[in-house]
């Protein structure tokens, strides 16, 4: 049965918008909290520090550190700052690779390919000994580039 409250509920793309608060028990840890926790665990293991060691430096139990690492407990800004000091990493470390790590990798590959292409064009250009042919090549390339811009526009 549809209630008056349901009929006035806002919708997004035809789906009713939920105002229910996200909870760890129902929804599981937030992916970002989980990622930050994973980075924390990785860095801790990297420097050979146990959960108890880290906990004692921060005045926490090892269970609390464990909950940070699983993302079950959210790390506050002040705690994150403390962690960065204790683990000797910049604050940005905890978020490194969080957004589009693969995209960055793809861009790096593309940029690498572009550099190789540019080097090939330059190499070929300077292998043409006749200056008139070289200027003709430049002219052709310029025309082709203009035409390409016109087509794409």
């Amino acid at each position, binding site marked *: 049965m549809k209630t008056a409250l349901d009929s006035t509920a806002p919708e997004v793309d035809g789906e009713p918008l939920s105002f229910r608060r996200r909870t760890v028990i129902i929804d599981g840890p937030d992916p970002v909290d*989980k*990622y930050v*926790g*994973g*980075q924390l*665990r*990785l860095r*801790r*293991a*990297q*420097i*050979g*520090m*146990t*959960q108890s060691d880290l906990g004692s430096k921060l005045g926490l139990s*090892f*269970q609390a550190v*464990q909950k940070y*690492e*699983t993302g079950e407990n959210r790390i506050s800004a002040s705690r994150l700052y403390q962690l960065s000091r204790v683990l000797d990493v910049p604050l940005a470390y905890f978020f490194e690779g969080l957004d589009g790590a693969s995209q960055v990798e793809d861009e790096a590959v593309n940029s690498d390919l572009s550099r190789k292409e540019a080097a090939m064009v330059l190499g070929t250009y300077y292998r043409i000994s006749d200056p008139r042919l070289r200027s003709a090549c430049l002219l052709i390339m310029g025309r082709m580039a203009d035409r390409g811009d016109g087509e794409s526009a």
Partner: protein
Amino acid sequence: MTVTARASHSISEPAGAVTCAADGGCSYLRALSTIEHLAGFEHTARSYAAAAARCRRNGCWAAAANGGAHGGPTPHASAAIPLYAARKPALYTPPSERMGQMIPFVRSRFVDFVSDSDGNYIERRQLKLDTLPGRNDPLGYLYRYWRGLRSETGCQFSNVDTVHLTRAGVIGTLHVVDVSSNDPVDFRFELFGYALPFGAQEKPRAHPVAIYAESTLRDYNTVRLTARPRLQRIRCRLDDTLHHYTRLILPFLNEGGRVVRLAVAIRQEPGNGSKIETGH
């Protein structure tokens, strides 16, 4: 497979590359990756796996970070890589020294002996857990760590801190067994110690020597049913090879308090792996 470095690694990029003796990348890092995966830390597991893959592509950067150059010496068990040990030297001792710390037989409770018509035999002595040495002993460290986990947490595998396993020095000889099935035949290894001279089967049941498979399954099942750890000294002859080791079996529970996973740590004792000459 030649066993490579025992000590742990950091996850920094390699400074140079040397030839790695491990098959398919760093076994040590892959073991860590598996443990992290089983504990539910996928992010860390992937990072270790990626580091192991870098080893496969570029050579062992752990050795390189210790002064090795490209084409330099191949790392192997005798050349311990002290990356981690340099930070935490307290518990690392060379394997030869560890072998000397035998638990006296007078402390054993009872002995079980089985043999078959092919000349294979297995002798299992149950040892008291309080006989484990307190310091510089991998099994002793691991047992004390597990006892702490049991008293302070639900003793689930997800609570395991790999840094403690590394400090104990058990990675490489540690097995993880899935015992969630009620039928011991279905028990299976989730991690098999890469430093052991046994062939890695997926299931303990698949061991070619039937009496060994049965006795192993019986011990695993006992720990599963009782949820109590077990310490044993095993001496056996399997296909003309003598095996001599101490085995610690630790149970881990699920959220319902049922034993679903075992961590089995092995300490190899003197005489382990020696071949028997069969004369005519």
